């Protein structure tokens, strides 16, 4: 047959399929008729003629099938026919179809949304060449027990010159810079900046989009001022002008020449407090211009990133750096006492901190998917049982086992494809909700989108599920005794085989158990977040506004030679406080190194008279504040006195200590009057103040001291404003006052402390909300499972119950029988779930606060709730059972 005829045949077969089908039918019937007529002529009775003709002919359906096969169009045809058959069959039971599709879609949607986030945060690689060779070089302090501290500049130069494991090494530090747009009247904006050594880009393996990187001769003190800007800034502030290279821009207090544009997406995850701005979205880079003597060895001001030489493992680098650190301890006993080095692969630092929460959510979404699949399997199984008669009839009529399996498979495929489509839609919505809820502390969420990999996963789940669905009824059909099924099937009266019923019950028990695990996990987190919210943060957050600003050294001299006499700097702070406090609606204002929730920096110190102890003392937090700070932030005085405006640069050096510090270093309550020495000066403790939870509400407050800002002045500070009503209401006035004082000073980091407080437990709240949503979903699905199984059992046993009631059984007894079955399944599920939760909630441990993962109250409460809910889910089917009219049921048989 030529290609043309072949195509024509197929075309005909496809287009005229219906006609062809009908012709075939007619032809076969004609044959049967002729056959019967012949037998009648031979003397048979009409009935016998018909019976024998049919018998001799064999299964009509199968021959039609074979005729179609002979056409050579069967495969495609059969596929289409299967799908159409499946569609018809699903359309005939809309309730079943919608519940299965919705159930699966919710499971797929939840898993896809979470997987999308996990993919973006954990799996998407860093945008650097051979990122596996990149490491962070942290210093650590055995006295404080810290593991990831910034390094000092001299240490960095020692790392550079005295090790052999790195091909590149670079240092950087945050350098926020105000940028004054050239347009007249435009407000100065604060840019997220970084000061870097010239090898920074080579270390990361990043090339500029335009222009070039820093040259070594630009990274020395006194070199011409240059800068690199981000692509983002180039687009937003410079209209993507191609002649940006070589332009001069005003950054902070100097004019710099732009030498290049860097691609967006440079990120350094896992930065310590105070360095967080380096993690991502840096807009401007300037040379650090450091020398081995430009900064003292005790000042830990830079983070160090290195690229390992090819073939050098992080462990080998760790060994070499540890040896060097030990040498430095000997060489610099004062500055480097108890200091070590920790080499951490950059990819590992990517997800530190957020990994436990994401792992919990991923596990939770997998559980939801599992419950959804169990539910769908359960429903399909129930349907397969009720369809035994249909299957039996079709087999008896000669339908091939393979075709039957194909059609069941097609049904599963159709269901799961519908579920996958809907599921991806749900995932997109869920993802949007997720991003809206996600705290800022989760890195790399900016560019999350459902990517092909995630979509592939959703489809994979769908196909897997459809295969399972295809197989379950097939297994049953194979076991099916046609005769038996037909005989017992006076209607749908035949009850399911005990093995199937047991399997379905097991599925429901598993569903309940899994949902118990999820609900207990959510319960634990909810209780944790409650306890966290109940923690006294040590300050009054309500009505408190925070802003940040920085004073450039050019106009506000800050020479170390005259420290702490920086009159212009202190005058600005004082004048700003005075003017803000004069505003209506403002109770007080203060300027401080940190806001009450910021940890700030630490320094080593001596207790005068107890110098020998210093060797084993951890560093102490130094929180420089204006005297109005305690009134403004609402930090209570415990003993002694607060700071006053008289404690200025020329007065005797004083400070306050927090209760944690007083307790630790002066356990006999004699802190007031003692002297601490740091930065070359002894400072007398004049008072003890309450502990601010500046490391987060879940953490113990570490020891801290509060020197007056006039004695320890700082250029980069937080302005706190206590208002009588809405904190944001005074913002325009504060901006106006600042502009009035100095138009080039940019205000940034504006937030209410209420918001900041919520943000500080953002991770727990995010995890709690999501896990809560998953738990609700799981519970709902499990209850659909309980309800569905019981309803089905009622339908299956309606005859039995009709007989029972006809024989005089009380309605209440029947009611109780169904309820008991439901409760039995639920209680088994709850018991299994509690055991599972005891094992699974260990994953949650790092997210809990104020209770353990085996919290008795949560377990009891959740078990009770689920028992009650499943009783409710059992009531409806039970009521249906009692509504059975014996006469009707028995007549139906």
């Amino acid at each position, binding site marked *: 047959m030529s290609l043309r005829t072949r195509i024509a045949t197929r075309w005909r077969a496809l287009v005229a399929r219906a006609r062809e089908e009908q012709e075939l039918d007619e*032809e076969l019937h004609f044959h049967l008729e002729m056959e019967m007529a012949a037998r009648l002529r031979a003397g048979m009775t009409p009935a016998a003629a018909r019976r024998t003709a049919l018998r001799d002919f064999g299964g009509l359906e199968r*021959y039609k099938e074979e005729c179609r096969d*002979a056409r050579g169009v069967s495969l495609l045809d059969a596929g289409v026919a299967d799908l159409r058959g499946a569609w018809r069959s699903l359309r005939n039971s809309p309730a079943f179809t919608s519940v299965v599709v919705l159930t699966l879609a919710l499971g797929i949607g939840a898993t896809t949304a979470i997987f999308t986030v996990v993919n973006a945060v954990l799996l998407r690689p860093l945008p650097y060449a051979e990122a596996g060779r990149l490491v962070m070089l942290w210093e650590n302090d055995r006295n404080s027990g810290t593991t990831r501290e910034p390094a000092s500049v001299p240490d960095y130069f020692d790392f550079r010159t005295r090790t052999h494991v790195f091909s590149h090494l670079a240092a950087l530090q945050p350098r926020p810079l105000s940028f004054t747009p050239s347009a007249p009247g435009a407000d100065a904006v604060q840019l997220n900046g970084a000061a870097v050594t010239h090898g920074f880009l080579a270390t990361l393996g990043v090339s500029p989009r335009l222009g070039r990187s820093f040259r070594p001769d630009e990274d020395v003190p006194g070199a011409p001022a240059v800068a690199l800007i981000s692509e983002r800034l180039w687009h937003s502030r410079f209209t993507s002008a191609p002649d940006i290279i070589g332009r001069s821009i005003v950054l902070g207090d100097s004019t710099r020449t732009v030498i290049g544009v860097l691609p967006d997406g440079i990120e350094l995850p896992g930065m310590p407090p105070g360095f967080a701005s380096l993690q991502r979205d840096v807009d401007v880079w300037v040379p650090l211009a450091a020398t081995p003597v430009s900064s003292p060895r005790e000042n830990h001001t830079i983070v160090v990133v290195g690229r390992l030489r090819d073939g050098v493992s992080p462990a080998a680098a760790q060994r070499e750096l540890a040896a060097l650190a030990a040498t430095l301890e000997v060489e610099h006993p004062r500055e480097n006492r108890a200091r070590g080095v920790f080499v951490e692969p950059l990819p590992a630092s990517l997800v530190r901190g957020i990994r436990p929460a994401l792992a919990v959510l991923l596990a939770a979404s997998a559980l939801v998917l599992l419950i959804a699949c169990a539910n769908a399997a359960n429903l399909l199984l129930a349907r397969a049982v009720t369809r035994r008669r249909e299957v039996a009839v079709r087999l008896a009529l000669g339908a091939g086992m393979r075709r039957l399996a194909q059609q069941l498979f097609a049904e599963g495929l159709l269901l799961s494809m519908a579920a996958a489509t809907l599921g991806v839609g749900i995932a997109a919505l869920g993802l949007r909700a997720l991003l809206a809820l996600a705290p800022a502390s989760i890195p790399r969420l900016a560019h999350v989108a459902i990517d092909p990999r995630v979509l592939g996963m959703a489809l994979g789940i769908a196909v897997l599920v459809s295969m399972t669905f295809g197989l379950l009824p097939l297994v049953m059909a194979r076991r099916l005794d046609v005769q038996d099924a037909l005989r017992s099937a006076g209607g749908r009266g035949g009850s399911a085989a005990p093995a199937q019923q047991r399997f379905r019950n097991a599925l429901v028990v598993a569903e309940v158990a899994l949902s118990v695990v999820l609900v207990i996990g959510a319960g634990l987190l909810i209780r944790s977040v409650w306890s966290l919210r109940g923690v006294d943060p040590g300050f009054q957050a309500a009505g408190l506004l925070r802003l940040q600003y920085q004073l450039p050294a050019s106009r506000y001299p800050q020479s170390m030679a005259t420290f702490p006499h920086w009159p212009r700097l202190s005058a600005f702070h004082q004048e700003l406080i005075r003017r803000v406090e004069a505003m209506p609606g403002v109770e007080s204002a203060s300027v401080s190194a940190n806001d009450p929730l910021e940890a700030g920096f630490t320094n080593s110190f001596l207790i005068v008279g107890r110098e020998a102890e210093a060797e084993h003392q951890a560093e102490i937090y130094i929180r420089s504040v204006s005297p109005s700070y305690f009134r403004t932030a609402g930090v209570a005085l415990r003993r002694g006195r607060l700071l006053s405006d008289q404690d200025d640069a020329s007065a005797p050096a004083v400070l306050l200590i927090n209760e944690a510090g007083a307790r630790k270093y002066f356990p006999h309550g004699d802190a007031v009057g003692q002297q601490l020495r740091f930065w070359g000066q002894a400072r007398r403790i004049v008072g003890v103040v309450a502990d601010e939870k500046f490391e987060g509400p879940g953490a113990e407050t570490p020891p801290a001291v509060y020197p007056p800002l006039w004695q320890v002045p700082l250029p980069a500070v937080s302005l706190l404003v206590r208002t009588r009503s809405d904190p944001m209401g005074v913002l325009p006035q504060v901006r106006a006052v600042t502009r009035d004082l100095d138009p080039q000073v940019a205000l940034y980091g504006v937030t209410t402390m209420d918001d900041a407080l919520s943000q500080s437990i953002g991770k727990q709240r995010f995890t709690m909300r999501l896990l809560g949503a998953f738990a609700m979903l799981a519970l709902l699905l499990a209850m659909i499972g309980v309800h569905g199984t019981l309803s089905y059992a009622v339908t299956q046993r309606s005859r039995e119950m009709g007989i029972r009631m006809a024989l005089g059984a009380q309605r209440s007894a029947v009611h109780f029988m169904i309820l008991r079955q439901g409760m039995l399944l639920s209680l088994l599920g709850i018991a299994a779930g509690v055991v599972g939760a005891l094992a699974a909630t260990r994953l949650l441990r790092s997210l809990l606060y104020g209770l353990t993962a085996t919290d008795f109250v949560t377990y009891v409460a959740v078990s009770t709730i689920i028992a009650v809910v499943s009783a409710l889910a059992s009531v409806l089917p039970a009521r249906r059972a009692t509504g059975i009219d014996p006469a009707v049921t028995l007549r139906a048989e």
Partner: protein
Amino acid sequence: MATSNADVLQGTLDLLILKALSLEPMHGWGVAQRIQQISRAVLQVNQGSLYPALRRLEDRGWIAAKWGTSENNRRARYYRLTSTGRAQLQQETESWERFMLAVQRVLRAQPV
């Protein structure tokens, strides 16, 4: 399209159908009756495999079908041999005879 020789029975049925149709066009039931009648009821056509075979032969272009009216005034599908079918019948008949001859020779072989 290559014809498989492996399925002797199927090939035989095809040959018989072609031969029957070479006598005159007829409908499916007629083909079965005719084969039965000529073979003096030795060859019973499995009626269920008849129609798939007819469809197959039609697909190969050896026979053609059209609707007509039967002896008892019913609409029936009549098949006739096409010219390619006639050539095919010729060829198949020869190869069948060769095959039969070969089998006969083997069966009549004497010990040497």
